[in-house]
């Protein structure tokens, strides 16, 4: 650390999202970030360890609680792992229903994120509108699964609830509104000066860095890299439904916004297609409770990127090892990279642009590189500083 830098610790209150603590140590030179070190673990709940002492059925509900926003992604990655170990094929209707619920969850997650991005740049009207519209997605999910957050819709061998034709019609009406609204928000993001000023050219992550640092999900795709588990390693019915992988080449926050806007539209298309083609079959098959010794790697494209589970069974009703790697952990090195060279005032939006979810994985401290002075800011203080700085400059 040179004499000219200043260290700023930010956290453990999250700089962008209130639910989750982590700590970033920023070294700043004037207004410019020169180095970032992340420290996570403030919320480590030992879920992998807990999974080893629970049965496969109990673990469905445990992994669903890894993340509150993308709970379906976890169950949808865990259940196929167990099914593969059991050599169990789930009925086609169950596959379609799983795909529909997964994509609805992605829509709810992307709407939530876009709203938060609005909040981070001081555009709270956008936040209110998006969160209002997000209710439509949550209502559809509630109608199908009975729940708004942790859906408890999947089980080993299929799904627990069927989608009736009335539900499908109602869902399609809701999706049409979501589609129209998202097209409007995309237009807004492309034209609104507040958004453009805070997002274009901010938080640059070059494609080469994104690949080397193993970034995943919308963060990687906003750096122009075409990578999506749904397309590369299809699961459920992604090899049957038409969709495309959204990429933008801007490598900045603006591209990350646009990737998520377009992905929401793609998801709406997938759901509509799947709702029209729900095959007739049972929705679940009975699965044995004892899982023979096997090892399985299960991957899906969660709203935040590649989610991977490694399961090792040992012939009992409890797993020997269940490894979970959430997309946020994978994106930390890339996010740190994209913060370097940027302004202190842009930290909240750049961190938020990766859509970090630290409940899945896990505050901020600052150090001035010129006099070694340290202070701690909460996210709210940093957000206020950020907005004030941008008004003055």
């Amino acid at each position, binding site marked *: 650390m040179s004499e000219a830098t200043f260290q700023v610790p930010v956290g453990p209150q999250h700089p962008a999202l209130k639910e989750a603590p982590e700590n970033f140590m920023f070294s700043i030179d004037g207004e410019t970030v020169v180095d970032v070190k992340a420290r996570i673990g403030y919320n480590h709940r030992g879920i992998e360890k807990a999974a080893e002492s629970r049965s496969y059925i109990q673990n469905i509900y445990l992994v669903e609680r890894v993340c509150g926003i993308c709970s379906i992604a976890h169950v949808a990655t865990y259940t196929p792992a167990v099914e593969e170990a059991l050599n169990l094929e789930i009925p086609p209707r169950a596959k379609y229903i799983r795909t529909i619920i997964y994509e609805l969850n992605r829509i709810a997650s992307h709407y939530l994120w876009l709203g938060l991005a609005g909040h981070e740049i001081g555009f709270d009207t956008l936040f209110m509108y998006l969160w209002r519209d997000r209710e439509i997605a949550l209502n559809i999910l509630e109608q199908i699964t009975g729940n708004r957050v942790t859906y408890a819709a999947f089980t080993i061998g299929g799904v627990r609830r069927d989608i009736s034709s009335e539900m499908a019609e109602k869902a399609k009406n809701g999706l049409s509104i979501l589609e129209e609204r998202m097209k409007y928000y995309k237009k807004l993001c492309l034209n609104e000066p507040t958004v453009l000023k805070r997002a274009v050219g901010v938080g640059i992550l070059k494609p080469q860095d994104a690949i080397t640092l193993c970034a995943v999900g919308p963060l990687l795709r906003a750096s122009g890299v075409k990578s999506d588990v749904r397309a590369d390693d299809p699961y459920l019915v992604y090899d049957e439904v038409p969709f495309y992988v959204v990429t933008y080449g801007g490598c900045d926050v603006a591209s990350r916004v646009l990737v998520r806007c377009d992905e929401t539209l793609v998801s709406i298309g997938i759901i509509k297609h799947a709702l029209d083609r729900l095959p007739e079959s049972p929705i679940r098959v009975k699965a044995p409770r004892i899982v023979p010794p096997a090892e399985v790697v299960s991957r899906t494209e969660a709203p935040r990127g590649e989610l*991977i589970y490694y399961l090792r069974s040992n012939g009992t009703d409890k797993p020997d090892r269940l*490894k979970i790697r959430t997309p946020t952990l994978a994106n930390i090195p890339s996010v740190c990279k994209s913060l370097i060279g940027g302004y202190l005032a842009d930290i909240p939006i750049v961190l938020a642009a990766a859509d970090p979810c630290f409940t899945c994985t896990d505050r901020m401290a600052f150090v001035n590189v010129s006099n070694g002075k340290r202070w701690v800011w909460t996210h709210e203080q940093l957000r206020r500083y950020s907005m004030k700085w941008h008004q003055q400059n």
Partner: protein
Amino acid sequence: MADTAQKPTGETVEIEENLKEKLGSKILELKVPRNRRIFVSVEKTAFREAAEYLTKNLEFKHISTITGRDAVGQTEVIYHLNRGGVELSLKVQVPSEEATLPTVTDLIPGAILYEREVHDLLGVEFKDHPDLSPLILPDDWPKGVYPLKKEWTTEKIRQKLAGPEEK
């Protein structure tokens, strides 16, 4: 899953053959349970060579994660590498008493946090890793307590953290 569409084809088979040809006798076990999934175990001595071959020659540029597993006396470290849609798990076992492995961060910089995670939870030392400071565990975590080891049951960890007077 059991359907025929999951039979290994094209790229997966090609990688499997390349592995057999290049690493041959150094492979302890090679499994291809379905399309786009490969599991390959190697001796500790051949690990670095295998990692270099996979990342440089076979262009596995992405690391999904690293799994550490306590395998009674042995610690198994599994590197989940990815190329396109093919997920290759490179497995290596090290004695738990002397759990050391060379780092792969020079080959795949994205592995930096995953190695720290395995170091935290299972005590595997990654030689030449730039920074093995705690990532997940608190700074004042007792030395020698590795939560993912089977001997450290949740109850035992709680007792240890509560301090000697409450034992």
